[in-house]
Every structure is written in C-alpha cells, then in structure tokens.
C-alpha cells in the first residue's frame, strides 16, 4: 500500500480499526503515521469542543436577564421621553446665548460683506491699467476700433433737407383739419322748425285701449255694487276722461309731430287708467 492509497481512505478509517496492510504501512511510513495521529487528535478535540461550546443554562439565564434589563430600560426611556422633551426646553439663558451667537455670526457676515466691497474697490484696476490692456489687445489684433456713427443730419442728402420743412407743416394741417371736422360733428344740430308731417295710421292707438263701452259699463256696475253713492261720480269722471281722450286723439291726428299733442294723449290715457285703478281699489267698500 502506498501513501496515496492510505491518505485517500484515511478520513474513513481514522476512527476505526486498521487493516494489516494499513498498519504495516503506518509502521513503515512515519509521514502517514503523523497524519493519522493528527487526525485522531483533531477528531478527539472536536468531540470535546462541541460539548464545551453549548452555553449552559446559566448563560442563557444571564443573557435573558440582560435582555430583560435592557427592555426595561428602553421602556423607562420611552416613558420618560415626553417628560424629557418638556424638560429639555432650553432655558432663557440658553436662548439668549444662541441669540448672541447668531448676532455674532450676523456681524461677522456684515463685516465680511463690507470688506468684500472695499476689496472690490481696491482691486478694481485703474484706468491706466485698462488702457494698457487695450493697447496690447489691439496690437495683437484681437480688438478693432468700432466704425464711426453717422449723425442723422449727415445721413440725409442736402436736397432732402431743403424739403424737410414740409413735413411738420403737413402734420399741422392734418391736425387742424381733423380738429375742425370733429368740432363740427360735435356741435348740436338745431331742430328744424318745420318738420315733415307724417300721417298717422288708423290703428295708431288701438281703440280697445281708449274707449270700450262694455268695459266702462262693467266698471260702473262694479262700483255701484260696492258703493252705490259713488256710481254717478265715477260716471261723470269717466265721461270727462273719454272726451279728453277723443280731443287728444283728434289733436294728435291733426299734428302727429306735435309733442304737446302726444303728451296730451298720454295724459288722457293715464287718467282713464287711474279711474279704473281707483274703481278696483280695495279702498272701496
């Protein structure tokens, strides 16, 4: 048996009895014997190690008690946290100190800004420096002089200036004519004394709105039923109103454009309307 053959089956036989051939090889091969002894030692130690690493009950109890203690501490912290917030409100002294610190920061910021402004001014190159820079850039060909701007006067040819005076004159004429036209339109037109006469159609004022004998009779009967003593009075006034309407209508037909005649007819109709209204008024008994 060779060393390779023995080492190949070594893990399987390390804890069992050896065969004669294997034993004979171990007696003759010190190297394999050393390996076997190491393996046997590892196996032996591993068994004892398993047993020794399992925590004992006491350890578990210690761990459990430790966990319980930490749990209690966390709970107490949670209970005390709200109180702790209130109690942690900074005192006025703390706020004052914070404010003073902020003020210091603000003052520092202002000082820095002031220094920056001064620094800007102090670092602004002088005009002599700018000129020298410009000369150098021109010599390099990086900048060129801008073309000269021509004035308006120079832009116009001579002949145009000889006739340019016509422009403001034309503008003045246009404005004047416009103003004159506007004023003429704004002036009130006088009414012509004689207006064309337009004949009125026959149904200019519907008859039903002016006279209606049946309606008049109904109204008088109604008044008589409620206040017999007033019937005659109403009848007289109705007669007055109807004759008023007739005269007004006649006048309007003769002079359709007469404003007074138009107003008279309106007044007459209004009176008739008032008569009917008072007849129907709840003030009657």
């Amino acid at each position: 048996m060779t060393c390779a053959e023995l080492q190949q089956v070594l893990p399987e036989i390390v804890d069992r009895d050896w065969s004669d051939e294997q034993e004979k090889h171990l007696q003759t091969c010190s190297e394999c014997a050393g390996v076997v002894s190491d393996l046997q030692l590892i196996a032996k130690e591993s068994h004892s190690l398993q047993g020794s690493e399992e925590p004992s009950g006491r350890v578990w109890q210690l761990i459990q008690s430790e966990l319980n203690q930490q749990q209690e501490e966390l709970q107490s912290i949670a209970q005390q946290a709200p109180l702790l917030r209130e109690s942690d409100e900074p005192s006025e002294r703390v706020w004052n100190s914070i404010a003073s610190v902020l003020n210091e920061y603000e003052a520092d910021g202002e000082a820095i800004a002031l220094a920056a402004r001064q620094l800007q001014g102090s670092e602004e190159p002088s005009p002599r420096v700018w000129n020298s820079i410009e000369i150098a850039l021109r010599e390099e060909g990086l900048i060129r002089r801008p073309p000269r701007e021509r004035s308006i006067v120079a832009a116009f040819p001579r002949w145009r200036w000889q006739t340019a005076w016509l422009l403001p004159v034309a503008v003045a004429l246009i404005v004047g004519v416009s103003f004159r036209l506007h004023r003429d339109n704004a002036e009130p037109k006088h009414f012509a004394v004689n207006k064309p006469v337009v004949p009125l159609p026959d149904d200019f004022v519907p008859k039903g709105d002016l006279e209606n004998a049946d309606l008049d009779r109904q109204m008088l009967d109604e008044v008589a039923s409620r206040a017999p003593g007033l019937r005659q009075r109403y009848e007289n006034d109705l007669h007055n109103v109807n004759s008023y309407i007739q005269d007004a209508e006649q006048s309007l037909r003769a002079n359709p454009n007469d404003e007074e005649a138009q107003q008279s007819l309106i007044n007459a109709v209004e009176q008739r309307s008032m008569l009917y209204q008072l007849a129907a008024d709840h003030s009657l008994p």
Partner: protein
Amino acid sequence: MRSRQYETKLALVVLLITATVAMAETRKEFRFPVSGKASISVTNVYGPISVKSAPGGQVFVVAILHSDKVEVDQSQSGDRIDIVSHLLAGADMQSGQVEYDIQVPIETAVTLHTTTGALTAEKLQGDITVEGAAANVSLRDIANAHVHVKTLDGPITLANINNGHVEVTSISGNVVMTSVNGPLVQVNSASGQIRYDGDFGYAGVYMLSSHTGDIEATAPSYASFDVSARSEKGKVENDFTLEPKHTSFVVKAGSAFAGTMNKAASSVKLFSMSGKIHLKKR
C-alpha cells in the same frame, strides 16, 4: 214758562244724543316700534287720515271708530306697518267711519288709500302716496320726497314742498300748489283747475297740463325759467317780458307763447286743450 220747559227738554235731548254718539265711538291706540326707515300703509274707506312726524322710534296710531260695524286690522312686519279699516255687515258711510291720527318718524314712507275723507300729511321727508276717489288731499311742509297724488274729484292742496318729485293726477279735482319746487313737478288734470304760486325753483321741470281746466301760474320777477305755453282752443296770457328762444315750438299770439326769463334755470310747460292759461307776475 212753557218755552223754558221746551228749551230744557231740547237741551236734554241733544245731550242724550251726544252722549249716545260718544259712547258708540271707540278709541284705540296702537304703537309700533321701528328702527331705520319705516313704511306705513293705511286703507280707510270712510273717514279722515292725518299723518305728521314726531320724534321717537315708533309709529303711534290713534283710531276713533264711530261704531261697532267697523274694526281696525293692524299688522307689522319689521318696519312695515299695515292698517286697514275693515267694514262689517251693515256698515255705511257714517257707521263705517274711522278717524286716524298717526305720528311717524320723519323719514317714514306713507301710503294712504281712502274713498272719502280728508287726507292730511305734514312735516315729513319720506315718500308719500295718496289715492282717493273723493278725498280732500292736503300735503304741506314736505321735503326731499317723492309725492304721488291721485284723486277723481277731490281737491288737492300742496304747500311748502321742497326738493320734491311731485306727480299729481286728478280728473276733476282742483289742484293748488304754493311754494312747491323740486326736480319734477307734474300735474295732470282733466277738468280741474291748476293753480301754481312759486318761483319754479332751480333746475326743475314743471309740467302743468289739463283738458278743459284753467291753468294759472304766478311767479316773482326774479324767477328763472324757460316757458312754453299753449292752449288749443282757449286763451293764453303772459305778464312776463320773455326773451325769445330758438325752439320748434310754434308761437301764436293769443294761443301760445314761449321764451326765457332770467337764466332759464327751470323748464316750465303749460298746456291745455281748451282751458285758459295765464302766466302771472307776482
């Protein structure tokens, strides 16, 4: 002796009748507290209504009922007050009569309806509406208000109405106006006469028109107005020396005239179909 006995008996009878009448009358009082601008409407078929202003934030109504055949219905909704004379069965012009005496805050709007009876309102600055068939209307010391009057043949008297918007319509009632001025004064009468005595105010429109009633307007020499006057079939007279004006109004001697006086501050139009028109200088 016999005559003395007769006189004594007569006096006793008169006394008895008066006592009977007095006993039949019933006096009722109503108080309505109001805030701000109130309005009151009174409908009274028979009897007078008198309204005047009084301090205090209330409307005070005194109603004297002439019999038990009439009762007063009253209601209040906020600042709106409604009073109606309710006639019962058997009521007539005498027994159904109620006399109203009303005191209101000065800016109260007043509406009065009646058939017969005197309608009086004074010292007010709220809108006034008066309607009555045969009512005798008297309005005085009114300012800054709309005044509307409608009657059939009851006479209408307006006095000392300043800055008023006045509209009067009457068929046959005479209309008399004294010191009435405002932005609008319009009188429409059929057969009633129209009398105006005032200075036509400033910047107002005055329109007096009638069918057959005469129109007479009296104004002082310092009055400032622009007048157009015409009567279709009646005579026209003018006491003023008017400045001519450019107008389409056709001037016709004896029938129509037009012109201005002083600065023509107010517009005056007098028109009648067949009544007489007279513009008099005071």
